[in-house]
């Protein structure tokens, strides 16, 4: 790719432009990474370093006090478990329900199928702001405020997942499913034993997107929980950040430590599985 053909005027990054472009890209990357670095380093700073003006990048004395205080004062383990339970339940529900409808839309001819697909496309565009007020009323009526069910149900089947699964399942040859039907296999067997194993990469992509979407979700858990015992990590963090009683110096270090604990698992998962993200976006054309 880099070697230009003999006659074509070279416009490829040459000896001068190549390093320049790398410098620009690296500077850009540094700007993108700066808040993360700042957070990670600040989490290990002492109160004195945190309040230093002008600020210091590297802690003059590394300490774990911020993490200790955070775990003492906030029930982080419980918030972590709440986030984890909700995210796992949301993901399992989505994998099942979205692939079921995806299969029906991709492989089953049924009356009204185009209407159902229309509903899926419409559901992609529904803004959350139109839903939260009556959802809160509904959940109050159903006694589901401060329950896992209340946090999970509104996200149990997303249109994005249906769209993604349908796209992947369309590439499965009809002949394969037809052969299974001739051998006497039922639709559920075909779906469970033949189709799902064939779309494992799509299931992986959907798992990552749904899990992180739930892990990062803020607005609905904020509304659907009053009892701190049911807070998810982002709600607990925001509540702590906006708490006027939070002590100034130490509180800041705790916030950095808390942010690090919330973000670090996400960044690690992303770094390991990043290929699935770009593939998912490219396939479905959606965030």
């Amino acid at each position, binding site marked *: 790719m880099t070697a230009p053909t003999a006659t074509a005027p070279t*416009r490829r990054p040459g000896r001068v432009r190549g390093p320049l472009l790398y410098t620009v890209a690296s500077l850009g990357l540094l700007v*993108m990474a700066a808040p993360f670095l700042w957070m990670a380093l600040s989490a290990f700073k002492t109160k004195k370093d945190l309040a230093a003006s002008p600020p210091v990048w590297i802690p003059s004395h590394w300490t774990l006090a911020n993490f200790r205080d955070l775990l003492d004062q906030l029930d982080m383990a419980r918030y972590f478990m709440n986030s984890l339970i909700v995210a796992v339940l949301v993901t399992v529900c989505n994998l099942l329900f979205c692939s079921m409808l995806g299969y029906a839309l991709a492989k089953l001819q049924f009356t009204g199928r185009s209407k159902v697909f229309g509903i899926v496309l419409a559901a992609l565009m529904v803004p959350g702001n139109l839903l939260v007020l009556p959802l809160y009323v509904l959940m109050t*009526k159903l006694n589901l405020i401060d329950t896992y069910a209340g946090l999970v149900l509104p996200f149990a089947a997303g249109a994005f997942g249906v769209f993604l699964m349908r796209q992947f399942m369309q590439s499965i040859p009809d002949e394969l499913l037809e052969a299974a039907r001739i051998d006497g296999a039922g639709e559920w067997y075909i779906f469970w034993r033949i189709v799902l194993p064939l779309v494992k990469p799509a299931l992986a992509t959907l798992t990552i997107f749904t899990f992180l979407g739930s892990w990062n979700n803020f607005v609905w858990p904020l509304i659907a929980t009053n009892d701190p015992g049911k807070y998810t990590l982002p709600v607990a963090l925001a509540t702590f950040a906006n708490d006027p009683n939070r002590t100034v110096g130490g509180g800041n270090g705790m916030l950095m430590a808390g942010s690090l604990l919330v973000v670090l698992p996400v960044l690690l998962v992303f770094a390991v599985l990043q290929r699935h993200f770009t593939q998912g976006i490219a396939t479905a054309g959606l965030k």
Partner: protein
Amino acid sequence: MSLVTGSTADSAATGPTKPSKAPVGPMRGSTRGPDRGRRLGRHNLHGWLFSTPFLVLFGVFMLLPIVATLLMSFTDFGARDVTRPFEAEFVGFDNYTRLFDDDVFRTALFNTGYFVVVGVPLTVVLGLLVAVLLNNGIDRARTFFRVGFYAPVVTTIVAVAVVWRFVLDPSDGLVAGLASELGLTAPDFLGSETWAMPSLIAMAVWRNLGTVMVLFIAGLQAIPTEVREAARLDGAGAWQELRRVTVPLLRPTMLYATVITSIGYLNVFEEPFVMTQGGPSNSTMTVSLDMYQEGFNFFHMGYASAMAYVLFVVIMGITVLQLRLLKDNTS
């Protein structure tokens, strides 16, 4: 239930009839065998069985709330009605007319517009530049750079907003430190009516650039290399190539990126909620935040529902306008 003719079933099978999202290729034109109709009876039952879970959840948690919000917006729905929803009083268009006299809401509308008008072009243009840089200028460590630029997208926004609060802190923050090294004094970003909104925009651009970048990289890779080669043979420089070849061919992606970024920014909530709570003196109050506060802090839920619908209509209007404007430009 009447059997559907083969041709109707075909149109259902060939994919989206509505304008599809940009990267989804053409899926029409596949011909189906004549035996489709015979299988229909058996498939009808299963088709609906497999659709049921989604449709039930959609009906209860989307369709019902959308209708309920509309109904609520014509009532004085308040705190006591949460437990007795059907006793709320009908007030006609009162909530809507009140909105136009509400200074906070007008400020929120203005601020949201500001956020979109400044934030969307910055996000899309920077995303495009980064995508071109990483796709055409960088050969080694591409993945490394992409992951780096995309990382803010996947991280928890609340945690990131908390961090930005300290990055922008006027006394011991990162930006203030850099400014003082250059001999400048940084303003109190989040405490200043002038600077608070630009600060939130900067954070949003930082966070959403990666999404746009990935879309553009996918778009760039769909451009045949022959087109670029031809432009180069004709003596186009890098800038000319970008302006005359790349950007026009990326128009569908650009349209899509602009629309989804606009929708996201029109709904902006977390950034002002965590970083400023709408202050100082409502300078970062956005429509979503105003709606949240009216609905869940003051329990003016009827009034907040009217806000939600005004915002919805604005978003629809702007989306349709963008689709039309950018489509016209293509032809």
